């Protein structure tokens, strides 16, 4: 096995945790990780040996998740207007049931905006420094800290109320 795969293998537990924080559902998180790994293996030439593979990989996981969120939004827009009747009803019930079974932390994470969730995942779950997280997401420090603050306030409210 080459150094690339070997290092990736040691990162898998952390990447799974990161995916779980982004996707807030165990099965979705593993699907996300699979898609991200496929993308990473195809793009391995773009990784510069000697640079941090963990940051490179987390960026791929995050980008794959954004793609997934966008395509879910597209699907929702396509189906919603025509199927105002029973389909939506069934779907809603499913969602409510699923939410009741979810762990409180997953449920709280699910109610954040995607932007808040990703900064919480990087800083509070993965323990990246602010500067590292801002660089990974390509956003200014001020944007990072304000998302972090708002996301946290929302989480505190949701979790302390429960």
């Amino acid at each position, binding site marked *: 096995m080459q150094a690339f795969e070997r290092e990736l293998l040691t990162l898998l537990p952390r990447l799974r945790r990161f995916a779980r924080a982004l996707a807030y559902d165990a099965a979705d998180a593993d699907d996300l990780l699979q898609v991200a*790994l496929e993308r990473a293996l195809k793009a391995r030439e773009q*990784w510069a040996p000697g640079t941090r593979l963990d940051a490179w990989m987390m960026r791929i996981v995050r980008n794959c998740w954004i793609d997934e969120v966008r395509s879910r939004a597209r699907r929702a827009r396509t189906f919603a207007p025509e199927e105002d009747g029973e389909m939506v009803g069934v779907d809603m019930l499913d969602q409510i049931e699923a939410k009741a079974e979810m762990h409180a932390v997953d449920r709280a994470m699910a109610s954040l905006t995607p932007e808040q969730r990703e900064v919480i995942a990087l800083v509070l779950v993965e323990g990246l420094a602010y500067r590292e997280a801002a*660089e990974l997401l390509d956003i200014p420090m001020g944007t990072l800290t304000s998302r972090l603050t708002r996301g946290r306030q929302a989480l505190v409210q949701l979790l302390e109320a429960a």
Partner: protein
Amino acid sequence: MMAIDDDMLMAFVDGELDDIGRARVERAVAQDPALRRRLEEQQRLRDRLSAHYGPIAEEEVPERFRSMLETNVLPFPAAPPRPARPLWQTLTALAATLVLGLLVGRTLLAPAPAAGPFAVEGGAMVARGDLAEALETQLASAQAQGAATRIGVTFVHNDGRTCRTFDSQAAAGIACRTGADWQVLMTAAGSGPQRSDYRQAGSENLLVQQAAQEMMAGEPHDDAAERRARDSGWRSSTPRR
């Protein structure tokens, strides 16, 4: 006394404040029960998140992920299939390398050979100065953030020599240990001014990587093999094919 806003309180919890900032928050918390409650709230949140997410990283990783990585590398030792490249492309690439070589020779060798990264010894181009130093001592697994020269992969050449790819502001390339020198087998344009750690490698590195793959016998060294190779003075091994 300056009020402690939420951003500052959270930076405190995240360990992002300097000594002065930390002391200021600690003093304010000691004097202000409302602020202390907010701080405790944030600490509870951190505890809750790590209680939830910590065990996920401890779980056994599902087999499907491990096997994705393991099957992916099987084709490698058995010579990876390479797309046939039209002759004109090869010629263009060769011409480009030649021009580059001339440029490198002109700009880096001519004025003061002792000061540049390359010199010509007995008809071969060899590494000198900082580049030679980096090739000789630097481990890819442990290089300083701002190192002037970055070492990429270390591998055994088809002819048995130990070779390493390098990249710096001025030039990237491949050098192989020959006697007491590092003979430079190819050069390409360097990556320019120090790039950020997370940015991906440019196409110039791809050229070097491809050339390295062509020369390589077996797999590139992993961290441990790289260290062993260095500690044994970059000895050559018997040619494999």
